């Protein structure tokens, strides 16, 4: 597993510059553009509605979790599908590496990448005074867990995908709506009451809540345990399915 991880790290040392654009610069632009810009209007108007903190402080941890989801999903789906189709996995199958080791190594690498990107994001948040100290560290770990919770099922699915177009469709119709309605931009409690329970089922909502409560220092043991358990279940379940789908695709 560590060998597979080592491979991805080696590759990453050549390509990290491009990935910085997507995984670090994008969320930071949103942080400034929406958090600060739109936040200026929100803070003037309805400061009470968002738990008494500035809109930027409310939005930033949500964006942190959403960005972790997006980059983990893209690497876990497009990255995996490419590796399975005409890349790294093909070359590794004749070696003693088992499919689940390839899956584990790749997921470990994705976790590492999410950790780095989220780390950069948290540093920016701290620089703007939106979080600090242990709370920042908690949010960072929460974001990484969120990323893995999306990457594992995505990899389990994508290893069998032969057309990259399907990943595009999945991103547009599943990931984008999750991003928009999981409490990233506004609290779920603002939605009509009948739809709120649906939000509580969404995986990103748990990621956003986990990061937000940790970042703002309002986390409770019960709440955080539920979020962590939900996300862990997704990550582990995804990995268990990935072991099957990887074997099916790579050792037919």
């Amino acid at each position, binding site marked *: 597993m560590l060998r597979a991880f080592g491979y991805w790290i080696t590759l990453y040392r050549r390509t990290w510059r*491009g990935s910085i654009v997507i995984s670090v610069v994008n969320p930071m*632009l949103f942080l400034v553009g929406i958090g600060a810009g739109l936040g200026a209007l929100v803070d003037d108007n309805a400061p009470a509605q968002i738990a008494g903190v500035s809109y930027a402080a409310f939005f930033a941890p949500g964006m942190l979790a959403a960005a972790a989801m997006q980059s983990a999903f893209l690497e876990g789906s497009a990255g995996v599908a490419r590796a399975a189709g005409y890349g790294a996995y093909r070359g590794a199958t004749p070696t003693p590496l088992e499919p689940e080791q390839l899956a584990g190594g790749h997921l470990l690498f994705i976790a590492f990448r999410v950790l780095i990107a989220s780390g950069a994001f948290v540093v920016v948040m701290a620089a703007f005074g939106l979080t600090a100290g242990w709370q920042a560290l908690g949010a960072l770990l929460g974001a990484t867990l969120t990323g893995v919770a999306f990457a594992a099922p995505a990899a389990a699915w994508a290893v069998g995908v032969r057309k990259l177009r399907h990943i595009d469709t999945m991103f547009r119709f599943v990931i984008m709506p999750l991003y928009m*309605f999981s409490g990233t*931009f506004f609290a779920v409690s603002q939605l009509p009451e009948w739809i709120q329970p649906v939000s509580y089922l969404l995986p990103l909502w748990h990621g956003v809540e986990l990061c937000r409560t940790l970042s703002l220092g309002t986390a409770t043991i019960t709440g955080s345990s539920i979020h962590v358990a939900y996300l862990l279940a997704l990550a582990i379940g995804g990995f268990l399915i990935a072991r099957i789908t990887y074997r099916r695709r790579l050792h037919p």
Partner: protein
Amino acid sequence: MTTVGAPAWTRRRTLALVERNFMVYRRSITPLLNALVEPILYLLSIGVGVGLLVGTVPGVDVPYAVYVAPAILATTAMNTAFNQTSFGVFTRMKIEKTYDAILPTPLSVTDIAVGEVTSAMINALLTSIGFLTLMAVGGLVTSAWVLLALPASVLISYAFAAGGLAVTTYLRDFPDFQYIQLFMLPMYLFATTFYPLSVYPEAVQPLIRALPLYHSIELVREPALGRLSWDLLIPVFYLIAFGSIAMYVATRRMTRAMLR
């Protein structure tokens, strides 16, 4: 090598390429519907969702969603046109080699360029009509002048289709598209899409005013809010000039690249 008598856009040959693109698109309506998914999500989550937190925008006495919707329409026209002449043209030029098959026919490089821009403009107009219909259904239309959004979207898509074409001639490979995103995303976020110019410090405002998307949004939003004035001629001229310069650069560089 070409015998240019009349300007390219008066020649029927350009239409052949427009027709070709349409025959490809006709097989599925999904590209156009796909182009509408993202703006609708933004309209719902930021326009309506965050809108409840924003209340009214300084200087405008309408619900936030009414304020944001025209801007999203402008960005949709921009993205639809730009994507076709950047991703689309790049794929046809470098991956599918479509133009290599076209160039031995009577079509010149200029015909191809004008044809691509034209069909991008048609696509953008269709998505704009779709989005405008949704705005009307959702009760986000307050003035009949909003209909000016349609000619506006033609102008916007002209500018950005030409711009996309010009940029594409500088790209080497797909990873280079990330650098385009590095410009397009900040422009999307900062060109007064989600809040007025007055939010910015005065020193920054001229910078925002220089962006082509800023003028595109002005051109759609002002009439949509029922505000008409001669000032709207500024974005009109800006977009025509921007598009024409880009068109000139694009055809020149494409001719040089394709007829080596």
